[in-house]
């Protein structure tokens, strides 16, 4: 019987190649016409540690993990133990494990699920050059009902460089896996669909952000590697030169943010990517971009904080620093994509906004978006591009920071005769000369605030879905599980509103009031221990409804059933003290 959704976890350790296997399965799923997402989890070792590939495949596009896993394949039992909290199971879930798989005897932790043994290590030895993960690949293919042929072509692509012998050995091993898998219980996935003409992509959130940046017009990046943002930089390093741009690996984050401000001052739309610790370092200079009115985009792929935190895990706890981390009164833009696909749109839009408004834009992605590979429909093209207001000619004296109505003053580019000015972090007058006079400070503060608040952001500030008196409000990666939860409830006849905010700063009081019109109960969902998003909402907006918060820190993602449970709990008239964390 075909499931519409299927979640599979592959675990292993000590170089067992779990990630490779997971990637191949995802690709085979894509070829079968399925959608899917794959995340990963790992131990702290650089090599040889525990690793888990966490997949979900579906007949429809998905943006969230499911409530629990249907199938676990543990190449050795010990490896599963580390990930127990991240791999919730049901009693009818299936664990396929190799009791002899580990280096020394270890057993699976207690789980409610069914257990079946598959001697992958022993079977691998029956094939020359065989590896347990290839047995696992073959077995899972049969268990979930993927076509065998798709595996061969993927294997061929992967092992192209290693030669025909390596390919032959692996394929023989996979076939042994097919044979073994034929005898195992079935956990059948979605029905295959190879007829669709819909163009689909395999992309990670980090790659998507890079693509959005380049589409938006970014041509200069300076950055310092940091988990989990490094893949954005890797993609940009290879891609920017192809469009005449460049990525500079800087010596630290302070150099990165200043280099992009320098390049942007020179007329080139510029961006850097980092994570929480890097953003903290950059705050002084982001303020420089705001005060000197030089466009700059900073992508923060959030991880667990505070301080070094958990570098490989997701959390939504950089909201506060993104909103309030600049010293002084420094209005700027804060945006956040709501899904892997949305990383393209939101980054591109951020570039457009930063350039139009001559200010800094912080884009908050997170590890769960950035490092998840997703099979998605091709992201739509959008028209938002970098479009800076540059004077075409200069009358007598050029006033770079002329106050004006919109607050946006045309910005000359070095090379333009007559447009010379000195950009300054010091407060300045309209001509750009440093000034400590109260009237100049006030005028420039007003200008910098007005240009951002007065801009027409249109409908993209949030995704608004549904109607009804109960609403769930969220942002970033939690939008995925929330959306799925509400979709299930809608199928049962319950219409609950979704407000997934994309533009967090500046605040949109008029639009939010309209979105909350008629809402009597508001559930806030966020992945932050101190409820940063809830505090932000209370400070920025008039929340007239009854408000409850469903929050927890990283690393565990929200799952749709948790959100449904919380809403049901509330429905049943229970008090707030039962709020889940």
């Amino acid at each position, binding site marked *: 019987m075909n499931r519409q959704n299927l979640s599979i976890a592959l675990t292993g350790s000590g170089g067992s190649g779990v990630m490779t296997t997971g990637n191949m399965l995802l690709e085979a799923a894509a*070829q079968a016409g399925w959608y899917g997402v794959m995340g990963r989890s790992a131990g702290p070792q650089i090599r040889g540690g525990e690793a888990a590939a966490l997949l979900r495949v579906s007949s429809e596009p998905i943006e969230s993990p499911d409530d629990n896993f249907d199938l676990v394949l543990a190449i050795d039992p010990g490896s599963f133990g580390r990930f127990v909290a991240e791999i919730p199971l049901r009693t009818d879930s299936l664990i396929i494990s190799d009791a002899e798989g580990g280096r020394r005897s270890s057993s699976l932790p207690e789980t409610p699920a069914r257990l079946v043994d598959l001697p992958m290590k022993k079977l691998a030895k029956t094939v020359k050059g065989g590896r347990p993960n290839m047995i696992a690949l073959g077995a899972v293919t049969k268990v979930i009902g993927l076509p065998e042929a798709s595996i061969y072509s993927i294997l061929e692509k992967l092992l192209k460089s290693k030669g025909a012998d390596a390919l032959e050995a692996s394929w023989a091993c996979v076939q042994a896996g097919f044979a073994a898998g034929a005898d195992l219980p079935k956990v059948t996935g979605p029905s295959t669909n190879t007829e669709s003409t819909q*163009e*689909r*992509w*395999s*992309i990670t959130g980090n790659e998507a952000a890079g*693509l959005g940046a*380049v*589409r938006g017009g970014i*041509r*200069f990046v*300076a950055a310092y590697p940091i988990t989990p943002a490094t893949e954005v930089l890797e993609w940009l390093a290879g*891609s920017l*030169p*192809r*469009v*005449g*741009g*460049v990525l*500079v690996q*800087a*010596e*630290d984050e*302070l*150099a*990165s*943010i*200043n*280099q*992009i*401000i*320098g*390049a*942007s*001052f*020179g*007329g*080139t739309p*510029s961006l850097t990517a980092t994570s929480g610790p890097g953003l903290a370092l950059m705050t*002084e*200079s982001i303020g*420089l971009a705001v005060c*000197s009115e030089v466009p700059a985009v900073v992508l923060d792929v959030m991880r667990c904080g505070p301080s070094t935190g958990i570098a490989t895990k997701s959390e939504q706890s950089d909201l506060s620093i993104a909103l309030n981390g600049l010293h002084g009164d420094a209005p700027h833009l804060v945006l956040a994509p709501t899904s892997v696909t949305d990383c393209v749109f939101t980054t591109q839009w951020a570039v457009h906004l930063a350039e139009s408004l001559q200010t800094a834009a912080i884009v908050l992605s997170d590890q769960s978006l950035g490092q998840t590979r997703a*099979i998605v429909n*091709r992201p739509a093209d959008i028209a938002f591009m970098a479009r800076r207001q540059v004077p075409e000619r200069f009358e007598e004296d050029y006033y770079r920071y002329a106050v004006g109505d919109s607050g946006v003053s045309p910005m*000359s580019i*070095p*090379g*333009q*005769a*007559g*447009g*010379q*000015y*000195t*950009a*300054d*972090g010091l407060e300045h007058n309209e001509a750009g*000369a*440093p000034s400590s006079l109260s009237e100049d400070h006030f005028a420039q503060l007003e200008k910098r605030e007005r240009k951002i608040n007065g801009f027409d952001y249109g409908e993209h500030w949030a995704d608004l879905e549904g109607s009804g008196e109960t609403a769930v409000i969220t942002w970033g990666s939690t939008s995925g599980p929330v959306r799925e939860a509400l979709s299930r409830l809608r199928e049962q006849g319950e219409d609950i509103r979704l407000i997934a905010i994309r533009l967090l700063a500046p605040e949109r009081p008029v639009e939010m009031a309209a979105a909350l019109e008629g809402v009597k109960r508001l559930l806030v969902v966020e992945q932050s221990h101190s409820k940063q998003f809830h505090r932000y909402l209370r400070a920025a907006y008039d929340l007239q409804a009854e408000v409850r918060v469903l929050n927890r820190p990283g690393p565990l993602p929200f799952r749709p059933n948790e959100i449904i449970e919380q809403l049901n709990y509330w429905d049943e008239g229970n008090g707030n003290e039962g709020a889940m964390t």
Partner: protein
Amino acid sequence: MTNETACVQLQPKEYKSGVKPVWCPGCGDFGVLGSITKALSGLQIQPENAAVISGIGCSSRMPTYLSTYGFHGVHGRALALATGLKVARPDLTVIATGGDGDGFSIGGNHFLHTCRRNPDMTYIVMDNQVYGMTKGQASPTTGPNWEKGKLTPGGTGINPFQPLVIALASGANFIARTSSSDSNGTARVIMDAINHPGFSLVQILSPCVTFRPEQRDWKHMLVPSPKEPTSDPAQAARRLLRDHGLYTGILYVGERSVYQPKLEPGISGIEEFEEEFRL
């Protein structure tokens, strides 16, 4: 200059913005301002094609006083601003200016790495061995026995930073020291520095008359180096080991490779990126 029309188009005066400097009368930075204007005039660089980038401090006020493009950034980060600008706009003449605190204390890391990266720009450091802007603390180039710093009343007791040594070791391509009182000589060195490819460091000893009035004597103590510039880093290193900090002139003119990525598109359109994602 002559009875007939000058055939030189841009005079040094035209490189001044007209904004009156706030430096204390007697400050060596006035001389440096003059030298920069003479150098730009000597090279006939159009003001709109030059950018002067600075951090924080008295010397970092320089961009405001020039009629070129300028950026007065945050403390210590002038070289990062300048690097980003130069890489994205290789057509511009990029000059970074600042003091010994901005450049060698908070800016030390960027100094090291910009020398190492060796982009084509000129860094003019007005070294007065003190933090003037914040009321006279010891700077990285202050000697160990200067006892007037309120935060280090017994003297710092630590070895001063040797900017020329660090520059040479890190990879700078042109290294010189001048005195701010030698306006024309400094101008000539700045011209050579701008013309020479790669990262050019010009350390200008520029007295702070407010916090280190004894530095007025520098003009009598600084002497031209008896040696010609060398392009051999080892030779330059040996000279620096014997340098008492008072020789002026160009020390090192190198042939190290310059960092300037080419900015030429190779693909026709962004659609080509989609190839790699498409299933």
